């Protein structure tokens, strides 16, 4: 049989493909529906948090920080309750990471504050002496891409039925509504920060969220995201 296959490339290729694909079909399909069900009380990210998540992804924070707490005492003592499948139902993509050069961040919102994050991004060794994390000064200078964040929220609402605007879930609304809510969520974060540049850039937002001079820096969105991890 095998010597026959060696002379018939078409059937050889089909045979190889079936043998390879078999594992995928058996392994992956059955898990899809139960895994996708969100845990109760889990809410989709707000547009500002999504903008922060983009910053997190852009800088590949997940190359060093995991977001997956394994069910071991040492991990739950250190980071908090272990992870459940349904907690990730709104994570596109997932950000579990594969290596911990820094600690897990799955529930970092429970034990770190806005000003801690600010100092940590600006100068990591100021809050964790001997940290080997890079400094991220450019996060304080660049503006968050609020349009793309809104586009993502709207996309997942339309395509994947993520329950924005439903009762008990975050509101998304029109672009104007979303802008206002982003400024609203950013305000207490900016207030808790000390960086002058960030504060000044945010000033026009207080009067009018749609002002073209209204700037929400990347660091603000990132902190909004990190604070939401609970």
């Amino acid at each position, binding site marked *: 049989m095998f*010597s026959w296959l*060696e002379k018939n*490339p078409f059937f050889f*290729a089909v045979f*190889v493909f079936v*043998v*390879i*694909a*078999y*594992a*995928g079909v058996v*392994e*992956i399909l059955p*898990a*899809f529906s*139960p*895994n*996708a069900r969100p845990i109760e009380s889990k809410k989709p990210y707000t547009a500002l948090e999504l903008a922060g998540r983009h910053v997190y992804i*852009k*800088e*590949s*924070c*997940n*190359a*060093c920080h*995991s977001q997956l707490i*394994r069910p*071991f005492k*040492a991990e739950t003592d*250190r980071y908090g309750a272990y*992870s459940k*499948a349904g*907690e*990730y*139902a709104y*994570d*596109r*993509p*997932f950000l579990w990471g594969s*290596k*911990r*050069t*820094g600690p897990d961040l799955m529930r970092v919102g429970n034990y770190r504050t806005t000003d801690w994050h600010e100092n940590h991004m600006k100068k990591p060794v100021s809050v964790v002496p*001997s*940290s*080997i994390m*890079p400094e*991220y000064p*450019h996060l304080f200078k660049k503006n968050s891409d609020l*349009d*793309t*964040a*809104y*586009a*993502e929220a*709207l*996309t997942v609402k*339309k*395509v994947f039925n993520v329950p924005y605007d439903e009762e008990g879930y975050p509101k998304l609304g029109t*672009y104007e509504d979303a802008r206002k809510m982003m400024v609203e969520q950013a305000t207490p974060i900016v207030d808790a920060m000390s960086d002058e540049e960030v504060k000044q850039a945010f000033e026009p937002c207080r009067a009018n969220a749609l002002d073209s001079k209204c700037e929400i820096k990347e660091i603000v969105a990132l902190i909004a995201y990190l604070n939401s991890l609970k």
Partner: protein
Amino acid sequence: MANPSQNLGYDYTVAKWFMFACILFGIIGMGIGTLIAFQLAFPELNNIAGEYSTFGRLRPLHTNGVVYGFMLSGIWATWYYVGQRVLKVSLRESKFLMFIGKAHFIIFMITILLAVVSLFAGVTTSKEYAELEWPFDIAVVVIWVLWGMGIFGLIGIRREKSLYISIWYYIATFLGVAMLYLFNNMEVPTKLVTGMGSWLHSVSMYAGSNDALIQWWWGHNAVAFVFTVAIIAEIYYFLPKESGQPVFSYKLSLFSFWSLMFIYLWAGGHHLIYSTVPDWMQTMGSIFSVVLILPSWGSAINILLTMKGEWHQVKESPLIKFMIFASTFYMFSTLEGSIQSVKSINALAHFTDWIPGHVHDGTLGWVGFMTMAAIYHMTPRVFKKEIYSKKIMEYQFTIQTLGIVLFFSSMWIAGITQGMMWRAYDDYGTLTYSFIDTVIALHPYFIIRAIGGLLYLIGFFMFAYNIYKSVTSSRSVEVEPKSASPMQA
């Protein structure tokens, strides 16, 4: 009857291009790897070029540069060489296939260039080894389809009826990666749906645990079908050619090929042990990863036994030594992978530096050595020049082996230290160490690892220099050598 292959005049144009690309991306990818290894030991290096030089930005560049730049170029260089020879047909005979081959290379180069720029800019989907955003994904699919047309086109016009085992492995690489890549990169471009925001942004089709499942189905197996399957294709051709020995056992080849095909994809689950995917899946991932030892060692033993009675060649030829060491590292690395997939060991090893350690003894030892050996073997036949220096090869071999050993041993110790420290409790039931204590403890190992990486990089420069000198100023080869590649001094 005269052997038709002697009158064919194989055309190595595309093979040559990919050989150069392989060396170029090897230098770039390994260079960035060495830099980020030093960054872990000396964090000030992170900000030497602002946001574009932080570890997070460079790490995907390193992995993509080495996996897709260096290794895939190497695989394709060997394909455009081996494919013609074992199918007994020259690319020159078909204008169409020649065009496809050239288009394959050119679109690949353009895509790599775009990939580098976009990754520097932080445009990434965050999925490991699949970081490229959707427009570049489409370009990758085009490249892959072109390669597939090349493979099956050449097979279509072949003179040799039976497909040699290397061809099986090339076909499997093509099919496996194609399937995995398509599924893992399913994403929805947000601009197309909403008309707003960035063109380069997309959201994954899968959420959370499902996304992780698909990603590691890809992450493990793409590595498998690029790092393992294609490299086995290479060694099954180049070792018998270089040593003048037939492959030890046809039955063992058959057994290891088909069982590898069947078992490999199950093993992706070992990346998800103790995660939130269902328990039975984790168990399957663990069991099949252990079983994977059989086909892996089957191939490796088949390769090693090919040298039966001819072991003196290892002493005489550095090229044979590269290949035999590659196989040995393959055995070592797959054994290590199986050990790490055992649940209780995974609990300790997961998220630690032992994981990159494991990846690197496979890639540096097995893939890197085999790729360089293949290029060394092809050079006298493609460029009709002797290899410039046997001595450089010997030194390169020693330096790189030392580099690999330093790399994986330091990461092995570092990983286990890290894992033990994370789980240590004192007599009062509180955690003994804070996280930063483990970071401090790893400092010396990070330095050793970086030095290991640097040694390997130096060896790679010696390799590049040796090839350069061979092509430009070495003695010409009049008649193509049957086995043992001619080497000067």
